């Protein structure tokens, strides 16, 4: 049914390839997040699915139907824009009903759908307000209501929360997620915020420079990143990815630093690093106390790394400690940044 299949999608702007051979599936009723730094092509992909941008090569299919060249209005998608795209001269009611009026939906039907949508997002009291008189969160709700009344099976969201403050963002994130599950929408959600991706996504498509770095559920991306970029993009603070040749002294570290070529890199998540009796000798540069945890920024010779310690660590800048990690928590990346899984025999 209305799942989305993207095959070999390309967007070429003259000499620049904004989207380069991207393929992925969005199963029906699931939420896929397109995640990546700005300029990675995630919004362009979304706009190509919506039909607002021409496709240079490849295909987009919704519900098994090829819609690559189809008019945007015929694709069965609705979209929430980063700026919400509310019509400033129409009140909330008219904004929500705009699409239904264009499509000449019967008056009685319009009213019931309006009432339902307004109730779902809590706008009943504000139907006669003008957009200029609404707060950021309320405008966001109007944009959501517009999507809901359209009853399109596919919903596209282009960084919908980036104009909101942190508290409201968390609130609206939950609300969008709740609506998506309740209405069983097939949703593609674009963001550069890893928290949104981790907390909402059924599947994350991580993009960099127009190419897919990795596809998978949030846990898979976090636990087995396929590339050094994926490893560092997800997680706060990011994974320590350390060049092998900067470990000056390997003796006494046991399985912490496996044998690997000098141009490979070794990755360890900060929360997997512990203060211990033995291990890598480091000097503490800074201590960031966050309440539930403490982030230590340390160096060992030319090597800089971060460690996340639960609770409050009783260390001061300048202290000398030893840090250790379990061999199972090591991620190895080769000279091209690709993940390499080592055999057990090799790690020991």
């Amino acid at each position, binding site marked *: 049914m209305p799942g989305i299949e993207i095959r070999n999608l390309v967007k070429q702007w003259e000499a620049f390839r904004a989207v380069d051979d991207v393929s992925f599936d969005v199963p029906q009723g699931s939420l896929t997040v397109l995640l990546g730094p700005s300029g990675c092509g995630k919004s362009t992909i979304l706009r190509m699915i*919506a*039909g*607002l941008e021409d496709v240079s090569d490849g295909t987009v299919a919704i519900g098994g139907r090829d819609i690559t060249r189809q008019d*945007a*209005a*015929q694709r069965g*998608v*609705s*979209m929430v*824009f*980063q*700026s919400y*795209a509310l*019509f*400033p*001269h129409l009140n909330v009611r008219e904004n929500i009903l*705009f*699409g239904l009026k*264009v*499509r000449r939906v019967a008056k009685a039907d319009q009213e019931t759908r309006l009432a339902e949508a307004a109730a779902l997002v809590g706008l009943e009291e504000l139907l006669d307000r*003008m957009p*200029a008189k609404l707060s950021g969160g309320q405008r966001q709700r109007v944009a959501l209501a*517009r999507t809901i009344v*359209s009853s399109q099976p596919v919903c596209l969201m282009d960084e919908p929360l980036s104009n909101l403050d942190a508290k409201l963002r968390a609130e609206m994130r939950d609300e969008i997620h709740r609506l998506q599950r309740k209405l069983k929408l097939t949703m593609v959600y674009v963001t550069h915020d890893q928290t949104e991706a981790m907390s909402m996504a059924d599947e994350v498509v991580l993009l960099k420079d127009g190419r897919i770095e990795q596809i998978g559920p949030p846990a898979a991306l976090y636990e087995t990143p396929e590339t050094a970029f994926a490893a560092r993009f997800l997680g706060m603070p990011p994974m320590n990815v350390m060049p092998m040749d900067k470990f000056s002294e390997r003796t006494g570290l046991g399985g912490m630093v496996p044998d690997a070529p000098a141009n490979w890199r070794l990755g360890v998540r900060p929360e997997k690093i512990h203060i211990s009796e033995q291990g890598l000798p480091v000097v503490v540069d800074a201590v960031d106390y966050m309440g539930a945890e403490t982030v230590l920024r340390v160096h060992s010779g030319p090597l800089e790394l971060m460690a996340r310690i639960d609770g409050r660590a009783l260390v001061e800048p300048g202290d000398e400690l030893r840090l250790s990690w379990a061999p199972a928590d090591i991620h190895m990346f080769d000279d091209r940044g690709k993940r390499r899984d080592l055999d057990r025999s090799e790690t020991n």
Partner: protein
Amino acid sequence: MTVSRDLMRHVHGWLLLTPAAILLIAFTHYPMVATLIDSFYSKGSAIRPSRFVGLGNYDSMMADPIFWKVLVNNMWFALGTIPVSIALAISMAMLVNQTLPGRSFLRMAYFTPTILPMIAVANIWLFFYSPYIGLIDQIAGWFGLPGHNWLGDPDTVLPAIIVMTIWKEAGFFMIFYLAALQHIPPELREAARLEGATRWYFFRRVLFPLLMPTTLFVLINAVLNSFKLVDHLFVLTKGGPDNASNLLLYYIFESAFSYFDTNYAATLTVVLLALLAVMALAQFFVLDRRIHYR
């Protein structure tokens, strides 16, 4: 203490106000009042000095067939130029607001008529309209159409002036529409497109309402312009033939400086001012309530 400080505050206020006030009073308010007073006096001459005649000048104005003709001409002129030039201005602005090759050249080309001096414009069009040798007649000649004295025929002279004015005004108004269009976020069009709105529906329900503040501004200007036109008539037709292209302001000019009846000219001026004030206020109050300002 406090009294003198209060007083100084007022003195300072008035001092700051004075330069502007002097200019406004000397060149705007005094002439208006003087004109109003003049309109109640008869035309003076060497043997018969000017005397108070009350509404006498207004009586003769009402009986003056040329006044009525000029007023009707002006109405047709306004109706002929304003809607067409606004429609053209919006279409041109929408055209050059798109990304198309040669866009900045096109914008400049549309705006050129506006930067040309009015007298030069009138001279160019005088050539276009010249019988037999003019551009229009030459082109018509290729198709075997007979020559026509466009400006000499009472039936075609006013339309000829209307066409020229539209050519001149539309580019000017386009600039305002272009500026307004550039402030309308492109996501609105995309959001409407996803809902299946046609271009016409989007224009009617979104674009045009959002352009209304500009339209009001342009409309008031266009109405004022249509009553202010003098220079073209001066070069092209001098209001003729038989007042067929005479407009109110040119008739005022004629009364004052050809017939030297400054009191009648003052009377006509008062009527013109009253007309403009009423129209500007009507547009402002009627339309303003229906306009959404962002």
